[in-house]
């Protein structure tokens, strides 16, 4: 039987529907998630299926969205809260960082804070300074949170289902530019466990760790490099906290070379943490300096040419690999 193909946004929607059907404590809330079906159509039809009690359209009140979701989680529910853009999670950072992340700890380990905070992330579609950022680093920096970024429809569905079933708060970031991308997704129930990286392509010459929009770009780069005789191993670090450093280390021990590619800013990006960990734990296996491919420390412009210029592309990955291979 041929594998069923669905889009990334359909994978998200399916994951939510299946988990809501499976567990009556699961519900969805956020701006425009209900009647409209999401600003990016990623929750289409869920309101019509489950009704307004379990699919709650909220006012434009990011602080209340996360605060209410947290309160509901503390009283035994399993909310999925959507903040339309990761950029606006800055509005409710107290609720995410000081409240949600610390509630289990601050209450002596009593309530499970089983909630998922979804947001679209990353740029590439001309939305400019306040709608294009990548803030995974901010959340990875906060003990108590888990942070996940899928790059394929299969991972999007499996990771979201795992995140909804997880007893801890999970920040689930969806690359806006990937919503329309299709890929194989089984119709049967499955999960992709949190905390596990995935070797998306095997290779012996260099390890490239990427996530989000940089993952498909890196796979294309690896294809091009293969034509030139360079075999890159591509690791999808789809879970950033907990980080599966073991899979990365095993690959680096094999290839001796590492490139980390992400769309978030280079300075203090998660790539810097991965580079630091690899040099701490596998210094003797490194044959070249670790390279980082990331957005330089600029504000994201709307102009297509400028945006494409500042955001990392396939060519940047190829150049980084070639600089050390």
């Amino acid at each position, binding site marked *: 039987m041929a594998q069923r193909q669905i889009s990334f946004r359909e994978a998200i929607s399916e994951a939510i529907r299946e988990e809501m059907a499976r567990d009556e404590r699961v519900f969805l809330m956020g701006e425009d998630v209900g009647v409209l079906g999401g600003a990016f159509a990623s929750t289409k039809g869920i309101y019509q299926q489950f009704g307004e009690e379990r699919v709650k359209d909220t006012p434009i009140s990011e602080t209340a969205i996360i605060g209410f979701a947290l309160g509901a989680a503390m009283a035994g529910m399993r909310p999925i809260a959507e903040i339309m853009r990761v950029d606006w999670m800055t509005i409710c950072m107290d609720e995410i960082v000081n409240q949600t992340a610390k509630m289990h700890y*601050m209450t002596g380990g009593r309530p499970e804070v089983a909630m998922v905070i979804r947001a679209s992330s990353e740029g590439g579609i001309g939305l400019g300074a306040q709608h294009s950022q990548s803030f995974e680093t901010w959340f990875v920096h906060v003990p108590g949170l888990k942070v996940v970024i899928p790059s394929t429809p299969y991972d999007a569905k499996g990771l979201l289902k795992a995140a909804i079933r997880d007893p801890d708060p999970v920040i689930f970031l969806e690359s806006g530019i990937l919503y329309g991308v299709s890929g194989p997704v089984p119709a049967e129930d499955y999960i992709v466990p949190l905390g596990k990286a995935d070797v998306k392509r095997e290779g012996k010459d260099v390890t490239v760790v990427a996530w989000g929009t940089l993952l498909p770009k890196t796979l294309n780069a690896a294809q091009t490099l293969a034509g030139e005789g360079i075999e890159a191993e591509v690791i999808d670090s789809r879970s950033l906290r907990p980080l599966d450093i073991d899979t990365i280390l095993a690959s680096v021990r094999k290839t001796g070379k590492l490139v980390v590619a992400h769309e978030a800013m280079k300075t203090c990006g998660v790539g810097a943490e991965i580079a630091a960990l690899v040099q701490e734990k596998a210094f003797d296996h490194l044959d070249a300096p670790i390279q980082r491919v990331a957005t330089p420390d600029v504000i994201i412009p709307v102009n297509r040419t400028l945006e494409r210029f500042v955001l990392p592309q396939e060519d940047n990955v190829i150049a980084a690999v070639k600089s050390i291979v």
Partner: protein
Amino acid sequence: MQLTKQELLSMYRRMLTIRNFEEGLTAFSAQGLVPGTGHVSIGEEAVAVGACTALAEKDYVISTHRAHGHVLAKGAEVKIILAEVLAKATGCTGGKGGSMHLSDFDRNILGTNGIVGGGITIAGGVGMAIKMRQTGQVCLCFFGDGAANRGTFHEGLNLAAVWKVPTVYVCTNNQYGMSMPQCRACANVDISARAVSYDMPGYRVDGTDVIAVYEAVKGAAERARRGEGPSLVEAVAYRLRGHSMRMDQIPGGNAYRPEGEVDEWAATRDPIPIFKNKLKELGYLDDNAAAQIEAECKKEFEQASEFALNSPEPKLESAFEWIYTQEGVVQWPSVR
């Protein structure tokens, strides 16, 4: 609904328990036994006890950084709360939360909060869960006049009212946000008046009158339980001590108030003597009975102190516990 003699005396005893706790704690703080700080609510006991007496056992409470009184009024054990404020292993969060992070899930005290206004949206969410699960509970949210100027107040009360959740918002207006007098912080000092904007009932009561607080919160809780949505109760009291025990120990740390203001409130509006006189007028209390209650409360605090002071320090490995629900997500660092 009329309170019985027994209930009224129990309220008086609870107010004294809180007063003893916080006066004892202040003495411990002066001896350096309280890590960090703590915010006492001396002068505000009538709000804590009046509001919590209006609740059922199954009802939830969410509170603030100034919450010793709130958790004790909802029934938390004196010795466990004292051990937590002294950061001992036997405290409610094993000494990791301290004065600002108190909870007792067995008594539906879902936690106090170190961020001013942090609990307001959370309490709305607890109300939302109650409504979704149809458990017939109410969530009471304590906050202060300072928090009323946070954005969480607007977002939280608006959404709670839109969704008609069974949350009762109780604002203790103690007239100061740290050093800032409320009259300089609020364009309209009547916080209850804001309820109109959220289409919910707003009540302004004397926060030094425990029965007035009880009656307002009782009505609001009944309304919430009937499914008619949230209410806002503003209880006007006065913070008789400084912002925190730490600030009180700093020279000039309490010098922002007009001369004589604290003394006047202490002499005329201290909720405990006010209630004591009322009980005497009602014939429910005489000097002998009052002395007996005082002695019993004193003894309770002495026993709690003995427990807390002799409790062990938390184990080092506990620093890595409860960050996540599962073990092993955070590990002991191999290199530090």
